[in-house]
């Protein structure tokens, strides 16, 4: 049993979307460091990085699953 449907592995669109949003947020947060300070955190930069890693993880999983399929 694989984790994907035959037509489109759902991890592709979700992973790409979160990677894109995460990257956008992280870059914006890095360029505007004072705008998003909460409890010593740069919310856009830090949470953007988390979202990017989450998205990248999904894309990596989908890519690996795609390679395994005949």
């Amino acid at each position: 049993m694989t984790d994907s449907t035959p037509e489109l592995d759902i991890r592709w669109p979700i992973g790409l979307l979160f990677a894109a949003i995460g990257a956008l947020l992280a870059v914006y947060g890095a360029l505007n460091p004072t705008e998003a300070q909460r409890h010593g955190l740069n919310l856009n930069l830090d949470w953007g990085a988390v979202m990017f890693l989450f998205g990248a993880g999904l894309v990596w999983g989908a890519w690996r699953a795609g390679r395994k399929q005949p």
Partner: protein
Amino acid sequence: MEAPGNSRAARAEKALTMKLHLIDYAVIALYCTFVLSVGAALKKHMRTSVDFFLSGRRIPAWVTGLAFISANLGALEVMGMAASGAKYGMLTSHFYWVGAIPAMIFVGLFMMPFYYGSRARSVPEYLRLRFDEKTRAFNAFTFAVMTVLASGINMYAMAIVFRLMLGWSIHTTILLSAAVVLAYTVLGGLTSSIYNEVLQFFLIVLGILPMAVLGMMDAGGWPGLAARLPPGFTRTWSTLGSATENPMGVEWFGIVMGLGFVLSFGYWCTDFLVVQRAMAARDMTAAQKTPLIAALPKMFIPFIVIVPGMVAWAILPRELFMVDGQVQHNLALPLMLAHYYPPGMLGVGITALLASFMSGMAGNVTAFNTVWTYDIYQSYIRRDAPDRHYLMMGRIATVAGVLISVGAAYLALQFSNIMDYLQLIFSFVNAPLLATFLLGMFSKRTTPNGAFWGLTSGTAAAALHFHAVRRELVHYSSDMAANFYGAIYAWAVCFVLTLLISFFTQPRAEAELVGLVYSLTEKPSYKRLPWLNRPATLALLVAVLTILLNWIYR
């Protein structure tokens, strides 16, 4: 000089109104682009009606599981639960730990073998297989009407919320969201809807979690939060001894029987909107695991939606909740978004709400197009057409469903009170249906006539009780208590009448009920699977965790 009242109102409005920046619009645009792209990518795979209406029955369990929970995690639920958190505190978690998880375990272990095993394509179709045409017709028509109206209410609520928060025009919000939902559901059918529900789940979690964590830090952790709130606000069971001891005005019996049994089992076990997600699973094991996998994140959702509401009530000035001199708990989540999120993260939070609203609409529309095409059009209008005709009809029904939803949204704008009533009625329509299903699935003696007259009488009893409460002929300590007891009465009327009428009428032959009734159906065996992968093991894990959560926050 400005009057103090006006000044407070202006401050509240300022705290709530959010100005979106370019970065926020960029996040929203990215989301819309991806949603439409998914629909376009799936279009070429929609070759048969089963592809379109049931995703070809080939979706893995973790995807159908997340869609199962997301179909119920619309923005109305997220905002409503945050509001309840602000108003009632942790008592609200009963809607999850009592009012959802036990029913999800039950439907996964005991009902899914009949839904999936019978190869019925919808809940009304199961009713036809088990009973007869008239019971299916009653359920199909009421469900079809309910879903498009619910979709319209969802759209109306979205337009109101976005006007309040962002100043967006109501017409633009309704028409644009309808256009996006229409595009991706017409293209990709149920698969498109399910994919977007999974996407929405992650958006809600990742979009709201930082706010919940920051809020808890500001409140001083759980002990700090408890100290800032009224006594008992962080407890779930200790104030349920009597209806007068808690702000919900309900005692433990109402919670357990009304919410935990009738309303909860009625919704999770019989509502086609959620059951359809499990029917799209790739095999019986995946179908049974769908609600069980959904239950795992579901039990932790209170910490993302209810706790921020409690935090809002604990740390934000009370005047921010005042509108026209009245406390509006519904503002809890928007106020928290405005308080904690800078440009950028605000775009993510708004996109999460937008995604929830839109996937709520899409879920209703995909359930509507299936019931319309299979249970109404194919049954009563054109029976023996080629499959491609029903695929085309599904797309036409999708367009019609969205257009009727837009009409319902505008109706709600004109008559918002009517929509309040309708929403309340929806909440107990499933209650009598639960009795029909329990007796139908677990007793071969239940007859078609017993089921039909029991169901119609139970629905009538629900409506009568509702009007008796509205006309103040019956009194309860709160609307919530009235809702719980209305559901209990509707269920009891349906249960008793179905039993009685079945006793005097002719049951169907046993040979016709194989695969539809518990005692006549071979149970699925999972001996071939490692015990960790079996649905029963997953159900046990879910049950133990739920009991633990109830115990910890008792």
